[in-house]
């Protein structure tokens, strides 16, 4: 199944892109996606358990993904 990964701020800069499409086995979790992304070049700034949102809601690493889900990897927020 295909999921979309969104990257922002320092994470987007490190990985050189704001989004990517990943082909994951069905039943894959948020943690599986993070594990995959951490293996990419430039991902050294990415923590092992970053904040993640699935379809615009914060989600845990154990969350099982559905085809087409939008997985956003969220750097430490600094609004205000």
């Amino acid at each position, binding site marked *: 199944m295909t999921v979309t990964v*969104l990257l*922002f*701020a*320092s994470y987007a*800069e490190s990985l050189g892109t704001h989004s990517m499409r990943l082909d994951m086995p069905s039943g894959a979790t948020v943690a599986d996606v993070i594990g995959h992304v951490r293996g990419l070049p430039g991902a050294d700034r990415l923590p092992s358990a970053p904040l993640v*949102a699935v379809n*615009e*809601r*914060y989600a845990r690493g154990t969350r099982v993904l559905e085809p087409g889900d939008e997985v*956003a990897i*969220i*750097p*430490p*927020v*600094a*609004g*205000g």
Partner: protein
Amino acid sequence: MRAAIVDHPIDATGLMAEVARHGNGATVLFVGTVRDLNDGRPVNGIEYSAYRSMAEREMADIVREASEQFATTDIVVEHRTGLLELGEASVIIAVAHSHRGAAYDASRYVIEQIKKRVPIWKREHYADGTREWVDPTSHRVAAGAGR
């Protein structure tokens, strides 16, 4: 109630007018502005970016929570993105209520929750020409009571 991410200067007077009702005895306006110094480093400006759709949804949740907790629907908030100069407003919150205590409390709730939950990031542009993404989790101890 309204929450938005905008990419233009925020109109404080407009937000105040939006929450004005004759039943309200107090209006609290919070304005967060770009400061010239962070952790002792001179700052020239700040570039804000956001996961816009989620940021608006999360801010709308926060406004709804404040509305339920403090019993007023007269709450609006706008957060700006893009490159801001010193003194410009990055966020403005207007809360109106029949009484001032709850207006202050609701305003405080909204800004503190924004800082905790809303996917917005800032990159400071320093006077020496360097730029850095701000990570509030990395220097909480060193920075002391700044937050």
